[in-house]
């Protein structure tokens, strides 16, 4: 039994989403997919190493952090939308050098 392909697939999907989508919500989804892949990888490695309790606790922490990230991200999205009434990343050019 091998779950690594799934982990990588999730990762790939997340990265693909991050790189190609322009909508901020989609970017959030990409992030989420990444973190879900990471959580899955955590659990699976716990199974492989036979330390499932330990990895579960790590996963719990990861999930909790994840939700904070999402919350802040959404607040940012909201703030950005208030400023530019857009969710398009192309409008976020203030990072331009």
């Amino acid at each position, binding site marked *: *039994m091998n*779950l690594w392909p*799934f982990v990588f*697939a*999730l990762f790939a*999907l997340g990265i*693909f*989403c991050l790189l190609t*989508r322009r*909508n901020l*919500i*989609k970017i*959030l*989804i*990409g992030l*989420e*997919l990444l973190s*879900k892949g990471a*959580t*899955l990888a955590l*659990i*699976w490695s*716990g*199974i492989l190493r*036979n330390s*499932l*309790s*330990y*990895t*579960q*606790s*790590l*996963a*719990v*922490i990861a*999930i*909790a*952090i*994840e*939700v*904070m*990230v*999402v*919350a*802040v991200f*959404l*607040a*940012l*999205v*909201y*703030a950005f*939308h*208030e*400023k530019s*009434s857009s*969710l398009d990343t192309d409008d976020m050019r203030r990072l331009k050098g």
Partner: protein
Amino acid sequence: MMIYLTLGFLLFFALLAVFLRDTLLSVLSLATVSALLSIAFYQLNSPVAGAFELSVGAGLITVLAVLTISFLQKRKEKKQPGAALWLALSLALAALVFFLFQALWPQVLADIIPETSWGEVGEILWKVRLFDLLPQILVILAAVLGILALLRKEGESKER
């Protein structure tokens, strides 16, 4: 080999989440992904992580995202989600049913995967990972403050 099935579904919904045009639908697909992941966790004998994933990942995040989207889209006064919403809801419902079905059939991988329990995980969490846990609380507080600040600032700037 139910786990492959679950993860296959998971990937399918992940693809949907990425490629669906409608943001609301893709958020709902993401919620499905979360739900499926928590099932997978159950199947992998990690109920604690599974429960967290389900409550937080599928629940809280989805609620937040949907709220934001609806909030923003209401302002934009775009068209209502309509049929797509129903489709998404039904998909989520299907996932939930699937999850319950799985929950009723727990001993699939018992032979290779060690049992864990809530108590054990909690103990580890409190004793071994205390170092993570305390900053985590701080992180949560910081996040709350950050969100408040972001929202408050916008409100103020609107007033001017």
